[in-house]
């Protein structure tokens, strides 16, 4: 027979560790239906018939937070056979508060008293028998971390499953009397073992329960009378009366159960906290921690692993352990130079039509440019050099070390060997494998980041991040923890968005997901370099202004969105536990890292792959001479599409098809904008990272104001498909994903419009109509930002001052 166990407990009580140790690898992570809260299920390592559902970490079963509603709906509707209530023994009072509520559900409960090892160290004694007697439930001492007592816990829980539940915690005689009167009024449909739960919830005027249990007006007014009479007597609201009673019951029991070591010592955690959130040291330490996270996950390990996947596994290939790479690259450089020399010489021959005799005494010039587009060196190429150059062999990587070819190379060799049609090869290699690479390329970096985040969360520092940064971020409707997604977002928006997972409050999390990609990521830097170089003579202020616009967009969006109906309503109370510091078990870090990374591949992978393949297809295929097939980008369907939609961008100053097409290819990856301009403005298939080869041609099409508007639009509009996939994964809702992308595009459009219309005056081509529209846009934005927030007030003003 299958047994269903629900695992319930406070956040930070060791629930994750216990769940991991009970289930091992037999776990499945998903989402609770319709929300972004993780749902974990698993089966006991030693007994596959026993299913364990890990409920979200909660402090209470109130109707106000998403996690709590999920937990209680599950407990009421899915009726688990037994609840394992994990209780942090070092924090007994508050943990028992949840226990008093679980006890009312009529479900058998086994208490797992965790951290027994720490209690022992602190010389604290908890009287297990007394605790078990007072709360009428079996209590098993465990240490989830040290794997102590878990066998006994499993045995007790499975034996107790389906048995009669113990007596609930009793309140004061007066309250008990009123509750039993309400119980008597309950409709007959309420099962006997749930009567107390419903009576208490009705007494608390719990709206979620009132909706579900349809009372007749008569019963409802009778119950109201009972509640009001009680409230008048005690002079408090019924909900608070019950909460008070629960804590009173706990306080009176705790003295009988818990013998605390009276000699007060500073725990290690206290000592750490003294330094970490110290008035003067907190910010420098915060900066240091953030720097380390960024340095490891973005700059060093993250980049190495990403480059390895992109250029190695999904590129030409890689040398095993890097051995031989240096020599190979040297040889490759020589070969490149030789090819350029040959090209220069042959070009001269072609343009000047030299006879073979003339050739022998002629000298061509090879211009060598730096990455910045400056002429670095002019190499004379005479006939002897030309002949020598022809003898330089193309280096074969396998001669330099153990070379593992990349997946595309292997597949290409195979496709060529079976005489596959060229267009199909393109589709498979560049379209599909390129798309898979686009998904997997992010994964290693993400794993590194998730590992670090799991560590910060597990050790207790993440709560301090919120504590330290809260003051700044809450002004914009964000959480103090929004700092991390945005910081990571400067490297890459995809892990940035995924990092928003650490924000508990759903509203803050959604807001963070929507605004994170406004910050210029690494892939947007080439666009900035291109525009700065092509139209602003490489002016120093272009790059900082891009970051400023990003930060400004986050702030403005935060303020505007906070006041919309989607985000308004009661602000989430920021009453947050600061858990003690401790070293999280490696197993938890690894499993958290794996789950998050894997869920990105699974949930975001499909959309990224499909979208990438589609845009690749559109940009490589089209009609030429009445025939459909592979064409240059200028003739592609994407070019047709770009021309068709380019009129949209006329108010932004760049209503050209090139701009529209580049924006579309930018959706695959933002740096593609530069490559696309290379093709469209210079007919070059390969340009430098900042595209200096096409700067001249761009100046003919873009005015500086238009170029800056183009830059702004591409920075702020819908991010690349990978990031959109990440948004979809984190929002867990198509509606919210579409809203996020639509908002980003509209916002980008408005900002770019304003920038272009005002900027145009500086360069002498401003228009009256455009300026009027820009002013109107500004006015609307100002209205949205400064209008009073409606629903926010009543909550504070509703304070019952007597």
């Amino acid at each position, binding site marked *: 027979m299958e047994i269903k166990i629900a695992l319930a407990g406070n956040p930070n009580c060791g629930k994750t560790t216990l769940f991991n140790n009970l289930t091992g690898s037999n776990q499945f992570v998903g989402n609770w239906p319709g929300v972004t809260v993780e749902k974990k299920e698993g089966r006991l390592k030693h007994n596959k018939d026993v299913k364990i559902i890990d409920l979200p970490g909660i402090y209470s079963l109130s109707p106000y937070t998403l996690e709590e509603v999920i937990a209680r709906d599950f407990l009421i509707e899915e009726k688990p056979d037994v609840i394992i209530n994990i209780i942090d023994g070092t924090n007994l009072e508050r943990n028992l508060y949840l226990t008093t509520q679980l006890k009312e559900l009529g479900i058998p409960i086994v208490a797992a008293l965790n951290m027994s090892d720490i209690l022992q160290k602190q010389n604290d004694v908890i009287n297990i028998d007394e605790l078990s007697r007072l709360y009428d439930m079996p209590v098993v001492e465990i240490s989830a971390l040290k794997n102590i007592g878990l066998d006994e816990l499993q045995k007790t829980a499975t034996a107790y499953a389906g048995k009669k539940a113990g007596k609930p915690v009793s309140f004061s005689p007066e309250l008990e009397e009123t509750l039993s009167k309400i119980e008597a009024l309950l409709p007959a449909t309420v099962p006997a073992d749930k009567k107390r739960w419903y009576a208490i919830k009705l007494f608390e005027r719990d709206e979620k329960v009132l909706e579900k249990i349809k009372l007749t007006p008569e019963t409802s007014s009778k119950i109201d009378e009972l509640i009001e009479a009680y409230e008048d007597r005690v002079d408090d609201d019924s909900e608070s009366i019950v909460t008070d009673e629960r804590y009173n019951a706990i306080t009176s029991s705790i003295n009988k159960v818990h013998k605390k070591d009276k000699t007060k010592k500073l725990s290690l955690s206290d000592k750490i906290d003294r330094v970490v959130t110290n008035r003067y040291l907190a910010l420098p330490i915060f900066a240091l921690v953030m720097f380390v996270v960024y340095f490891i996950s973005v700059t060093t390990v993250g980049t190495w692993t990403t480059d390895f996947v992109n250029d190695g596994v999904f590129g030409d290939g890689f040398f095993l352990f890097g051995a031989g790479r240096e020599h190979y690259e040297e040889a490759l450089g020589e070969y490149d130079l030789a090819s350029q020399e040959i090209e220069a010489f042959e070009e001269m021959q072609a343009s000047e039509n030299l006879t073979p005799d003339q050739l022998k005494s002629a000298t061509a010039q090879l211009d060598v440019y730096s990455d910045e587009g400056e002429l670095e060196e002019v190499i004379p190429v005479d006939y002897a050099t030309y002949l020598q150059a022809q003898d330089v062999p193309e280096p074969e990587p396998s001669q330099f070390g153990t070379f593992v070819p990349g997946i595309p190379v292997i597949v290409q060799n195979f496709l060529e060997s079976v005489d596959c049609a060229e267009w199909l090869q393109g589709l498979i290699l560049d379209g599909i494998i390129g798309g898979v690479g686009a998904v997997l390329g992010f994964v290693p970096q993400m794993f590194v980041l998730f590992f670090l985040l799991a560590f910060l969360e597990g050790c207790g520092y993440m709560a301090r991040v919120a504590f330290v940064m809260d*003051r700044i971020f809450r002004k914009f409707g964000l959480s103090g923890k929004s700092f991390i997604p945005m910081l990571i977002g400067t490297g890459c928006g995809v892990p940035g968005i995924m990092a928003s997972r650490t924000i508990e409050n759903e509203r803050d999390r959604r807001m963070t997901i929507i605004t994170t990609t406004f910050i210029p990521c690494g892939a947007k830097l080439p666009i900035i370099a291109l525009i700065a170089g092509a139209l602003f003579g490489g002016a120093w202020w272009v790059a900082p202004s891009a970051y400023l616009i990003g930060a400004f967009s986050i702030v403005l969006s935060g303020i505007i969105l906070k006041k919309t109906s989607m985000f308004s309503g*009661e602000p989430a109370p920021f009453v*947050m536990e600061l858990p003690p510091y401790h070293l999280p078990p490696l197993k938890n870090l690894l499993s958290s890292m794996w789950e998050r990374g894997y869920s990105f591949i699974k949930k975001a992978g499909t959309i990224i792959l499909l979208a990438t393949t589609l845009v690749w297809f559109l940009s490589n295929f089209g009609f030429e001479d009445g025939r459909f097939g592979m064409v240059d980008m200028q003739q592609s369907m994407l070019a047709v599409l770009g021309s068709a939609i380019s009129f949209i961008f006329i108010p932004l100053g760049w209503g050209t098809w090139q701009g529209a097409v580049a924006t579309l290819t930018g959706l695959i990856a933002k740096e593609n904008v530069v490559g696309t301009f290379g093709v469209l403005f210079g007919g070059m298939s390969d340009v430098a990272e900042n595209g200096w080869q096409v700067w001249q041609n761009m100046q003919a099409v873009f005015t500086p104001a238009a170029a800056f508007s183009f830059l702004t639009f591409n920075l702020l509009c819908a991010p690349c498909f990978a990031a959109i996939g990440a948004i979809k994964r984190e929002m867990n809702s198509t509606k919210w994903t579409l809203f996020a992308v639509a908002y980003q595009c509209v916002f980008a459009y408005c900002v770019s419009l304003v920038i272009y219309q005002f900027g145009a005056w500086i360069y002498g081509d401003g228009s009256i109509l455009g300026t009027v529209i820009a002013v109107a846009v500004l006015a609307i934005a100002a209205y949205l930002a400064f209008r009073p927030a409606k629903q926010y007030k009543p909550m504070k003003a509703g304070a019952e001052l007597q």
Partner: protein
Amino acid sequence: MNTLKDAKIGSTVNVKKIHATGALKRRIMDMGLTRGTPVYLRKLAPLGDPIEITVRGYELSIRKDDASLIEVEETED
């Protein structure tokens, strides 16, 4: 009215009444801040808000806005 917001860092006070309603009141009380509970004001965040307090043996962070809704009284000692 003495509130938790104005209480001195390093002092211990007792909760007298919660002047909030709805979700906020429930949350504050759920975390153990009920009538008569002693609260130790541990420290101020580096930027001046929120406050870190010790209640029922654990650490809690609470914004000054919310703390201003918690009426407290001096402990008798």
